[in-house]
């Protein structure tokens, strides 16, 4: 079961939809979300995205896992807006963020990374005229998705090492080794990419 928004195999209509169409729809909803400015419009939007999870045959608890990491940020944003703009605005902002994260998760859970990369590479082809390599952008996307569980794993290792040495609440003792390990991993990944033929 995916806890990090990675592809879940399936044969639902959403799984079969072309990656380009899903990405375009996500972009359109992202841009269109600026028009969601009434508190009563947010609930139906979230419900619509959740119905997408049902269509894809993805359990509700998996959908919930996708927004769980947002809790702290959402809490902070909500508190800010309640104080500055009132509870209605807070509800709209947090609701729209949650809806967009759910939608992005729905796309990644129902789309193979390679299909997504192919769609992005196709969309970026016109950028060749300004000497941007679309394959590079596709590779960047794939590596970003792949790196999420790697960095989460490194963070868990660092946290365990911290606990073992009794440094339970030191942000610096957590951040420094995590950054160092992440950079080392990036270095090793660079070597692996060269070894696998991504050399120019």
């Amino acid at each position, binding site marked *: 079961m*995916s806890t*990090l928004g*990675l*592809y879940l*195999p399936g044969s639902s209509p959403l799984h079969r939809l072309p990656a380009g169409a899903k990405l375009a729809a996500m972009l359109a909803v992202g841009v269109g979300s600026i028009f969601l400015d009434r508190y009563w419009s947010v609930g139906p939007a979230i419900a619509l995205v959740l119905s997408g999870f049902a269509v894809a045959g993805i359990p509700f608890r998996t959908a919930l896992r996708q927004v769980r990491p947002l809790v702290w940020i959402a809490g902070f944003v909500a508190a800010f807006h309640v104080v500055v703009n009132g509870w209605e605005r807070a509800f709209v902002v947090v609701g729209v963020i949650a809806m967009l994260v759910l939608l992005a998760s729905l796309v990644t859970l129902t789309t*193979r*990374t*390679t299909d997504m990369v192919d769609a992005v590479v196709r969309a970026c082809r016109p950028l060749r005229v300004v000497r941007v390599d679309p394959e590079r952008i596709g590779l960047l996307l*794939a*590596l970003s*998705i*792949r790196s999420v*569980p*790697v960095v989460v*794993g490194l963070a868990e290792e660092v946290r365990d090492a911290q606990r073992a040495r009794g440094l339970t609440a030191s942000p610096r003792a957590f951040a420094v080794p995590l950054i160092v390990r992440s950079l080392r*991993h990036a270095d*090793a*990944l660079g*070597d*692996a*990419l*060269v*070894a*696998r*033929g*991504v*050399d*120019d």
Partner: protein
Amino acid sequence: MIEVEGVTHIYGEAANERVVLNEVNVTLDEPRIGVIGANGSGKSTFVRLINGLVVPTRGKVRVDGRDTTEDGREIRRRVGFCFTDPDAQIVMPTVREDIAFGLRRRGLSKAEVAARVGSALETYALEDHADHPAHLLSGGQKQLLALASVLVTEPDTLVLDEPTTLLDLRNAAKVSALVRTLDQQVILVNHHLDLLNDFDRVIVFDDTLLVFDGSAPEATDFYRRLMA
């Protein structure tokens, strides 16, 4: 055939320079070659020279007559490389996608990529995990995936830099058994000396120098005495 002529490699510059390989001369054309040595002896740098991941500061490395300094790209197509830590070389999120990665970059058709990936999944007993996230595999399965992703591109030579170091004995034996079945020339860096018993030739590095070159029993005996 791999020819290493008068190779010295130095990391860093001026005051901070560190010699990691010193005047190495060797020709490797046997099917199974082991490389052993203490940590920091230069063995990993040596094998990285073979597929052009590292280019020599002085001297020449040639693979089938091609110079790694001038022809790195072509050499990397012929010489596959497998690292110690599989997590660092798995570049795609799922098993199937990672095996397909190297093939897609070679411009093969989708149908051919799918056929070769399917065959690799079966050969390396990964078909049940094809669409699983790679990070959820066990250490042994990750190393098998790393090997499968390299071997699916059909290199002439496979370099393995301590592929069993992070594995338990069972998985180390599994990887070792797989290596034995390969048709390719294999160059294996390893601390598990038992895994080199049936190799055709083993070379030993110590303190930047190639200090022994001979049969597996002689080389491992020499190395044990050196480390005593």
